[in-house]
């Protein structure tokens, strides 16, 4: 049967129904006429004709079933009827729709985040399913999120040469840099990449070209760049003749050779790259110096493209073998070092790794919310099922089958959830970029955390729709269609004490809601405690009265001598500003994306059992740094202006380094070798936190800026707020050079808080949704309590007649509410303890079983339950025994 004739039949359905009706009536009229001829009265003849014919509607239905695609007709009927029924009780329908929309919308949004950030973060890349992240390992340990072990360029090139299962090795290193715009400098984010970058990713520049193989060879030999579409549009106004023009990057003129296509933001989840330069330009962009020939300096964050059909296991074993050969060939630098491949969602060095636990929690939260919403909708439908008992009874009496009624009710549920999916997807679409707003700003630099509402998310939502229908629709439908024809005329007699099946269903729905909202409340409480601990925790430096900003002079064309002069003059000027206590420059700021450099050091008098030099973290800081930051010195002195190019090389070590390498002796006066020079230790600083509050005490040392390469981070100790210092600073800087603009000024406290973004996002999601869940559960409990009270008026009246006072009845209802809450809380507690591992990643000095969290969640839950039961309880207490028993 062709599609056209199917459509034709569907459209002609009304006429066919009409024909059928006429045909049957004609039959009965003929029969009545015959009966009349046989001597019956006209009235009696017509009655007999109808009786002999049998159930007209029933036969009509059977006739319709004889038609092909009758199930489709039935479905369309059900849809239309379902829609009418929804419109008939608009309040209930809208409430149900709202619950489901929130549930499904929240799910769609979170899935789109997971899709766009973890699973398929690079939509512009041709085969991202074959892409894996590469990270180094040290003695079997891979880098954790934010703490990755990078790969050196010589190792990277050797791996590329010796591994055959890969289409490409892609080197990629994110860097913050300055973009010269006219006379001003603007902060920009770019990547240092291998020459194959664009070809290997299958990203074709829309103008010009990608990089050529020879452009990754030669120290600073190829100042060329590919710029992003957005930079091209915003900075160059889409100039079609852009290729061949130059752009100053970090003070160095670069020739623009290509423009990346729109939608390609590079390959670092969370950040939108504005330009790319080839590996050969590494030194120009990296403060730590030339690293392309040093097998011991590890800085590359890379990816590989597997050949089609190669499994991750095969790839891993080949690359491990290659790493083992490197270890054997270069024991001095590679002992204990390996290479590990990660699926993109576990990428250890970008925001995928940082957001993984948060997104995991978000997923659990939205699934909980959906379950709660489904329970609530089930409630609503159950209540409506009671109201529609009469309708069902009539329909059964005129011959409808139970299966047919069930189908009808499920179709109604499907209508509801389809509408909810449509609204939910809209909601999800609006929320897809919300994550960026939830995260703290990054000094105005372009963030990029888009959700992807692709066909996978859409399919999942459709599946969710069916699942939700099954979850919230089946129980009420079965209940509503299970009408006892004989019993329907009898009044239902549920009671507070005795629960029939229908009562049981309601009670268990409320139980589930209480359990889920309790779990969410505990989660929120745990995160709150954890955040409070983090905020109260001292990172080892002052967070309130110290500000941090940056000042980039090199890109404005300054050489080292002019930088030094400028910085000295600026510090002198700042000293005279009222309210400023002190100021000092440094190379890195704690809790930034990069917080330190690393170098091997040889410590005098430390006999090294392992036979290799320890690699330690360090920072370069100016005079007065420790006083400015508020880091106490345990012995010795702080750096002074005398610790400059002319003075003897010195260093300050931290407590952990002193303890580990001098074993309790005061290291002041001892020496260690660093970068080929012997440094004398002049002080010991107290340990502080460098990149995260969770990190264990780490050996760390400081060297003077003037005896090393210099830095751009400016710390200011002051009682003034950041905004006013920002103005003062801009004024003082402009007085020295009009073309220089300082970066964003924030407190160190803000700097630390920005690293707690995952906890903040998780806390916000949990708080919002646990309040929502609590409300839904309270509404559910109110519903079931008032229903039960109204159904058991007779029993309540009887109790009263037998001597129970209003107080007793109040207590009776409240105690039932509390018993229900207790059961739900017990279930929820079990659920929370079972899933606490999920939160564990984000918790800071809080046990997932923290009694305070459980206790506060219990209190909130109990108060909510009492509030929900109070009105029904009062109603029960006001029962008039005479009227209740008489009715």
């Amino acid at each position: 049967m062709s599609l056209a004739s199917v459509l034709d039949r569907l459209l002609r359905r009304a006429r066919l129904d009409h024909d059928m009706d006429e045909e049957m009536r004609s039959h009965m009229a003929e029969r009545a006429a015959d009966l009349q001829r046989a001597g019956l009265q006209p009235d009696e003849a017509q009655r007999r004709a109808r009786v002999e014919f049998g159930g007209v509607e029933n036969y009509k239905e059977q006739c319709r079933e004889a038609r092909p695609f009758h199930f489709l007709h039935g479905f369309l009927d059900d849809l239309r009827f379902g829609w009418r029924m929804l419109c008939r009780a608009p309040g209930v329908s809208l409430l149900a729709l709202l619950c489901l929309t929130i549930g499904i919308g929240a799910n769609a949004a979170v899935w789109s985040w997971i899709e766009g950030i973890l699973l398929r973060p690079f939509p512009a890349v041709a085969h991202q399913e074959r892409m894996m992240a590469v990270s180094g390992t040290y003695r079997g340990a891979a880098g954790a999120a934010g703490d990755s072990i990078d790969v050196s360029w010589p190792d990277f090139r050797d791996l590329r040469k010796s591994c055959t299962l890969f289409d490409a090795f892609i080197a990629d290193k994110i860097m913050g840099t300055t973009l010269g715009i006219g006379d001003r400098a603007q902060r920009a984010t770019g990547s240092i990449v291998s020459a194959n970058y664009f070809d290997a990713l299958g990203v074709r520049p829309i103008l010009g070209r990608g990089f050529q193989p020879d452009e990754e060879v030669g120290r600073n030999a190829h100042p060329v760049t590919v710029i992003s579409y957005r930079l091209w549009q915003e900075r160059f106004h889409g100039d079609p003749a852009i290729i061949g023009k130059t752009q100053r990057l970090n003070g160095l003129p670069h020739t623009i050779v290509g423009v990346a296509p729109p939608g390609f933001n590079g390959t670092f989840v969370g950040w939108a790259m504005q330009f790319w330069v080839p590996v050969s330009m590494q030194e120009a962009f990296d403060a730590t110096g030339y690293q392309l020939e040093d097998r011991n300096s590890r800085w590359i964050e890379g990816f590989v493209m597997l050949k089609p059909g190669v499994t991750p296991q095969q790839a891993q074993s080949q690359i491990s073998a290659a790493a083992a050969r490197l270890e054997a060939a270069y024991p001095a630098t590679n002992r204990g070092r390996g290479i590990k491949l990660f699926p993109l969602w576990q990428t250890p060095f970008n925001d995928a790794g940082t957001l993984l636990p948060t997104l995991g929690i978000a997923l659990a939260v939205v699934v909980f919310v959906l379950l709660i919403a489904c329970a609530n909708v089930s409630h609503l439908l159950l209540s409506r099922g009671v109201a529609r008992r009469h309708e069902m009874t009539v329909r059964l009496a005129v011959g409808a089958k139970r299966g047919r009624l069930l189908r009808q009710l499920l179709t109604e549920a499907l209508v509801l959830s389809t509408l909810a999916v449509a609204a939910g997807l809209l909601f999800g679409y609006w929320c897809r970029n919300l994550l960026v707003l939830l995260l703290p700003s990054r000094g105005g630099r372009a963030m990029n955390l888009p959700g992807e509402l692709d066909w996978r998310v859409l399919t999942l939502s459709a599946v969710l729709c069916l699942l939700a229908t099954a979850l919230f629709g089946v129980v009420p439908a079965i209940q509503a269609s299970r009408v006892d024809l004989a019993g329907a005329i009898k009044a239902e007699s549920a009671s507070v004490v005795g629960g029939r099946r229908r009562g049981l269903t309601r009670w268990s729905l409320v139980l589930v809601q209480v359990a889920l909202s309790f779990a969410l409340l505990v989660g929120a409480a745990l995160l709150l405690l954890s955040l409070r601990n983090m905020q109260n925790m001292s990172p080892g430096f002052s967070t309130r009265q110290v500000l941090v900003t940056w000042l980039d002079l090199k890109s404005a064309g300054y050489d080292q001598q002019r930088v030094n002069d400028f910085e000295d003059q600026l510090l002198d000027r700042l000293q005279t500003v009222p309210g400023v206590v002190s100021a000092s420059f440094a190379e890195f700021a704690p809790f930034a994306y990069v917080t330190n450099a690393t170098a091997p050091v040889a410590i005098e008098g430390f006999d090294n059992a392992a036979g290799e030099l320890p690699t330690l973290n360090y920072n370069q800081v100016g005079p007065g740094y420790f006083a400015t930051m508020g880091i106490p010195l345990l012995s010795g002195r702080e750096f002074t202006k005398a610790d400059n190019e002319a003075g003897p090389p010195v260093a300050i070590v931290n407590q952990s380094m002193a303890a580990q390498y001098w074993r309790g002796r005061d290291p002041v006066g001892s020496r260690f070798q660093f970068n080929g020079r012997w440094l004398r230790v002049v002080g010991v600083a107290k340990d502080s936190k460098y990149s995260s509050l969770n990190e264990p005490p780490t050996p760390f040392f400081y060297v003077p800026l003037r005896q090393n390469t210099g830095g751009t981070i400016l710390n200011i100790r002051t009682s003034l707020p950041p905004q006013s210092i920002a103005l003062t600073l801009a004024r003082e800087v402009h007085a020295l050079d009009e073309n220089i603009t300082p970066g964003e000024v924030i407190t160190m406290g803000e700097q630390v808080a920005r690293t707690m973004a995952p906890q903040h996002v998780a806390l916000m999601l949990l708080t919002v949704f646990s309040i929502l869940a609590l409300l839904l559960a309270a509404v559910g409990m109110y519903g079931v309590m008032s229903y039960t009270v109204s159904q058991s008026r007779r029993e309540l009246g009887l109790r009263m007649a037998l001597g129970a006072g209003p107080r007793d009845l109040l207590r009776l209802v409240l105690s039932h509410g509390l018993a229900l809450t207790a059961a739900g809380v017990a279930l929820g507690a079990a659920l929370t303890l079972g899933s606490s591992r999920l939160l564990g990643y984000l918790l800071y000095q809080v046990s997932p079983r923290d009694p305070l969290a459980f206790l506060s969640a219990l209190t909130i839950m109990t108060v909510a339950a009492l509030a929900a039961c109070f009105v029904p309880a009062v109603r029960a207490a006001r029962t008039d025994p005479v009227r209740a028993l008489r009715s």
Partner: protein
Amino acid sequence: MAAPKAELLPGTLDLLILKAVSLGPLHGYGVLLRIQQISAGALLIEQGALYPALYRLQEQNLLATEWGTSENNRRAKYYRLTRQGEKRLRDETQSWNRLVAAMSAVLGSRPEEA
């Protein structure tokens, strides 16, 4: 009810309808009357049950329909046999006869013949 009446075997209603219509186009009530007339009122058919069967046969292209006027001047839908319907009637009649012969042989057998 004077004469004993037989319940229809499942599936036989279709065959009865095809046979009734093969003698000339009929409307629904006419089919009923024709069957009662041929069987001398021995077969019991609930009147409404006729229609689902008529619609089924029509869907299988065994019957064709057209609207006409009954003897009592009422608008009525007439059913007639199609080419396919004729063939089906022949086939079904043959297989029915074989079944009846076989059943009679079995039911009419005596112990010594078995």
